[in-house]
């Protein structure tokens, strides 16, 4: 049982890792493309790679960090304009083929031997070369910190039942949050008081408290893979969510959804569909680049680690959480990362090697991802939080 709980705990850690936050931001961008505008962008990993390279190389070349972030975002804007110009007037699958090809071209160029002095070639750029300004910007100080400081170990000497109880409460709260969230979206959820939004926020906070009470985690306050990176990553996630929310409920966002549902109708209303799609592509691409920067801040920039499969994982996470739902990317990505780790660890821990070796359990987790993606699209295209009526579009 202890081993089981430890594995659950490592799943939670994975769900809150800085790299996960990075991917969440990129998936929020993808949601803007795919969920709200109906653009089939299969090159989100390319946007991430551009952001990461722009950020890391600028810092290595001696630019201040803020400027480096702007360089990364600027590269994404240029990339989106180049990709969008020829394809946004064509049928949707052209954009898919062009974006996936362009992302691959970036990857091939990034790992060129000839560019080794610049991009580090196939070995990539090491974190220590560019994350110093980021670490220096921390105000959390030195030392280590456990979240939450008050946890299951403080009650009854950390008996098993305390942990199980905490786990049960956490799961109950998460289910509640999801149901309230769906209720707000579809307008017919459980009638919890008159203020579902307040319930939602309180529920999210309470479930986080319950989770960290059950699975306290300890990291360096500041180090590259510590609380500082997590704080910045998830703050950026919150900002990205807020921006998307404000955008989507604005008149601009409504026209965007109109483009998704029926381009011709929008055109006949005098809207510039091409321009709208381009704006969405640029905005989502910038979020992708920002996500790329967060993704690499505690590891390294390697072209091959931001290949096609990252884009496909982003789609799986988005569809799992629910496309065209504001919180879909967060929920989907966290469940995706934690779920894959749990499948891998549990099958490694509990299946004997004669049935499945540890290496095979890694591959098994990816097979499950692929099959989950198929089943999701077929049987539950709206994911956990989405609204089925919003996903009937076709490109």
């Amino acid at each position, binding site marked *: 049982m202890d081993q089981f709980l430890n594995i659950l705990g490592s799943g939670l850690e994975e769900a809150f890792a800085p790299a996960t936050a990075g991917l969440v931001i990129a998936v929020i961008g993808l949601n803007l493309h795919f969920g709200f505008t109906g653009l089939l962008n299969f090159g989100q990993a390319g946007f991430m790679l551009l952001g990461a390279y722009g950020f890391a190389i600028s810092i290595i070349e001696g630019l201040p960090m803020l400027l480096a972030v702007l360089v990364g975002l600027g590269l994404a804007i240029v990339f989106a304009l180049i990709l969008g110009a020829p394809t946004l007037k064509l049928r949707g699958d052209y954009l898919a083929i062009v974006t996936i090809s362009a992302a691959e071209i970036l990857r091939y*160029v990034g790992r060129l031997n000839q560019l080794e002095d610049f991009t580090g070639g196939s070995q990539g750029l090491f974190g220590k070369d560019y994350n110093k300004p980021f670490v220096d910007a921390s105000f959390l100080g030195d030392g280590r910190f456990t979240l939450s400081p008050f946890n299951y170990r403080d009650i009854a000497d950390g008996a098993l039942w305390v942990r199980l109880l905490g786990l049960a409460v956490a799961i109950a709260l998460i289910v509640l949050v999801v149901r309230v969230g769906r209720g707000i979206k579809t307008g017919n959820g459980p009638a919890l008081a008159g203020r579902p939004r307040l319930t939602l926020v309180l529920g999210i906070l309470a479930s986080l408290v319950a989770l960290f009470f059950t699975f306290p985690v300890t990291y360096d306050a500041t180090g590259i893979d510590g609380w500082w990176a997590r704080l910045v990553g998830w703050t950026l996630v919150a900002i990205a969510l807020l921006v998307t929310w404000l955008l989507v409920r604005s008149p601009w966002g409504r026209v965007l959804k109109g483009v998704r549902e029926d381009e011709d109708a929008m055109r006949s209303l005098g809207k510039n569909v091409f321009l709208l799609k381009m704006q969405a592509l640029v905005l989502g691409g910038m979020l992708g680049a920002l996500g790329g920067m967060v993704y690499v801040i505690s590891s390294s920039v390697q072209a091959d680690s931001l290949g096609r499969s990252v884009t496909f994982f982003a789609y799986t996470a988005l569809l799992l959480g629910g496309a065209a739902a504001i919180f879909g990317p967060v929920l989907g990505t966290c469940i995706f990362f934690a779920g894959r780790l749990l499948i*891998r660890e549990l099958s490694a821990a509990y299946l004997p090697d004669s049935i499945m070796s540890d290496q095979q359990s890694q591959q098994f987790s990816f097979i499950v991802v692929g099959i989950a993606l198929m089943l999701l699209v077929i049987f539950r295209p709206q994911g956990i939080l989405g609204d089925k009526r919003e996903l009937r579009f076709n490109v």
Partner: protein
Amino acid sequence: MGVFPLLALLGVVTVQGPAHAVASLCLAQADATGCVNGTVGNRAAPVEGAVVTLLDEAGTEIESQTTEADGKFSFTLDTAGSYLIKVDPASLPKDLEIRPPAAAFQGPDGAIKVEVVLGKSAVPALEVRSVDYSDAGTSFADKIAQSVVQGLRLGLLLALASIGLSLIYGTTGLSNFAHAEQVTLGGMLGYGLCNVAGLNMWLGIVLVTLICAATGFAQDLVIWQPLRRRGLGLTQLMIVTIGLSLALQYTFQYVVGNSQKKVVVETFDVVTIGPVTLTKLSYVAMGISLIVIGAVGYVLLRTRIGQATRAVSDNPALAAASGIDVDKIIRLVWTVAAGLAGLGGILYALVVSNGIRWDTGMQILLLLFAAVTLGGLGTAFGAFVGSLVIGLIVELAGPLGAPGDLKYAVALGILILLLLVRPQGLLGRATRVG
């Protein structure tokens, strides 16, 4: 997903302690140990039996390892600093040498510099190249001639797969991302039948084609026809194929493992015609694909079935109204497409990539899409022409100055440029596509 979760996995596994496949792999622990890990050769073609030596900065030997079949080496160090890594040239196969590293990494006496940091893994590149590798020696014209023939070979094999992809797109409107896995499946079955089970190669090729065709039939029966009946949109269907492609890739890896597998063990005689040198089997493979493609073309143009297929491509509703069983035609298209891809896969593994790996198909998927789009989405002959063009571009990019893997990037770049001026492709009819 990068080093990050992998290290987490290894960390957990090591704590639990049972023996596992990567037990000897060095794990960097923060502030305690640093690692030098890597592969001699590359992941696709690792070198077995190479003696890798780790030296300190002064050139004193610290440790020496001999690589196994996976070409991997792994040193654990407890002091950060600069180290040198060296491969004994005598331990490499006679025709190979280590590719010299970039100037910044060159150490004395052919050694490669590595910077070791505690808590991190350093991964020096020890790629190999042919000893007779040289830019001089052959004239430019000869190199071009050799590349043109290689390009035609690649193009013809790509055409086997891309014609099916194009037919599926034409009849159902679906961009099938899992088509490349049918190519891999062909190679994998070839490895299983010819290498493991010891079947005759020619019999193996025929069997592989038939089995792959059967998988196409089964796929349409079990997955695609029911989904068409459900009325699932094309975007959604496309994402289903991506899921299928992921699942299949990792199933191959699950069953066969990570390494490159050869379809047949023996090597083939080399035939030189003028400036062009290829294996005898290459010419045979080119012949086979020409004949098969010719047969497909004949069926499409001259028979009632072919006529019906083209009718479904043009307008499924009208085809159904004129008495064509659209579902039957689509079933046939899936069967033929998968069979052709499987044939392409085993031939590709035999003559181009010298073996098959779980991601062989994935690497050529974008070339297939480029070929299909270049020729004009949904037109079978466009796919044929597009494949030849893509094959030629890929092989000619090298001699004309594109370095390394960039040859694939060049092909994709040309695709993007073409879409700017001629979105309907080379042979497509100019219709409104958006």
